[in-house]
């Protein structure tokens, strides 16, 4: 019932064949149809509509929080970054351009940029201190818990990639490394890294469209 109610608020005139779909299929539907509901909500936010903002939060918070948590590996930092992301959505909704990417992609990109920006700053501060504090601390309990909770669907989707495709995408997208850092880390030529990023993402896209991950 909860899913249908949420769905009805996105699509006031819900196509009957959609109502009752499972969550995963709904997500797939949102991708494939470019989530017109969220697009419209962002347009309303740009006009200062705070109830549209609440709806956007409810539909995207688990994605934004989950992604930032996976990248930052700290619930406290993930919460802070999530707050920043929504403040940015509220202030910059007028910059959203549905012709370039659907709303869900725009929000995922904002969240990813914020989280990676934070990771890079922390990393560069750590690099400066490395000589003073020695080895980095062992991962704490919350970090290990996140690893254990790694979603089976994500593992399955990444499992459809070659080893190198998976590594370059994981290091860049979840590790926050630049393409140069990825090449250095893997000891692979930059050209190869670029190619694997590209064909790896295209492969993921076809996995997403064709398979029931």
């Amino acid at each position: 019932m909860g899913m249908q109610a949420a769905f009805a608020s996105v699509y006031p005139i819900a196509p009957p064949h959609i109502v009752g779909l499972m969550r995963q299929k709904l997500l797939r539907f949102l991708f494939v149809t470019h989530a017109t509901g969220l697009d419209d909500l962002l347009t309303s936010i740009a006009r200062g509509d705070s109830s549209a903002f609440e709806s956007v939060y409810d539909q995207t918070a688990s994605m934004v929080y989950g992604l930032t948590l996976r990248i930052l590996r700290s619930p406290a930092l993930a919460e802070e970054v999530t707050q920043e992301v929504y403040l940015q959505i509220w202030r910059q909704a007028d910059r959203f351009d549905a012709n370039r990417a659907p709303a869900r992609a725009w929000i995922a990109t904002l969240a990813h940029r914020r989280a990676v920006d934070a990771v890079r700053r922390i990393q560069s501060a750590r690099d400066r201190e490395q000589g003073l504090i020695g080895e980095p601390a062992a991962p704490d309990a919350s970090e290990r818990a996140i690893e254990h909770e790694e979603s089976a669907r994500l593992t399955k989707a990444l499992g459809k990639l070659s080893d190198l495709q998976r590594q370059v995408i994981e290091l860049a997208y979840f590790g926050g490394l630049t393409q140069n850092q990825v090449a250095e880390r893997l000891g692979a030529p930059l050209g190869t890294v670029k190619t694997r990023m590209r064909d790896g993402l295209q492969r993921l896209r076809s996995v997403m469209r064709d398979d029931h991950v």
Partner: protein
Amino acid sequence: MSEEHDLVAAYALNALDELEAHRFERHLDECDSCRRELAELLEATTFLADLSSAAAPTDLRQRVLSQIQAPGRRRGLAWIVATAAAAVALVFGSLWATSLARLDHFEQVAAIYQAADAQPTALAGAEGEGRFTHSVSLGQGVFATEDLADAPADSVYELWLIDDTGPHPAGLFEAGEAVIVDDFSPGQMIAVTLEPAGGSDLPTGPILLSGQL
């Protein structure tokens, strides 16, 4: 041109450094095929974001909603990150000749450095280094920098002490000058930003140097 096309996947993964990303964005404005491919690759990265979903803490929703009602009252991301990356105190070594050469209050500073309970705190950042040496018994500390470039015209460096209640201005300075601080407490963050001439009541620029008392 073909070199530019090659950056599309790394851009979708946010794996370019600032310069490369800027270059690619200019290319994107004039290249239909990259815009088309970027939209495709963003479907894949958004898929990864969605597969990372995790339930956000329930109280986060209220915090996000209240910040759009009272904007500007939150600490920025940079402050949080600086806290996470708080610098480790260096063991007090030598005086910083470059700063001390331009000191007006040499005796006062010398007393702080020579106090039996003088405690040094290192400030790290991409733009240079800083050191805050304070004595609890004297209730005074001195802040000095090294390698900091001259502030651009119409702007000034500002020192901040940050705690649970937010950032507090602790003095304005030019590159190479020292600042004497007489209101601080253990556990506070100390940080430097670049501010408009005359300084600010709350930081407006990014953190250049930071450390923890």
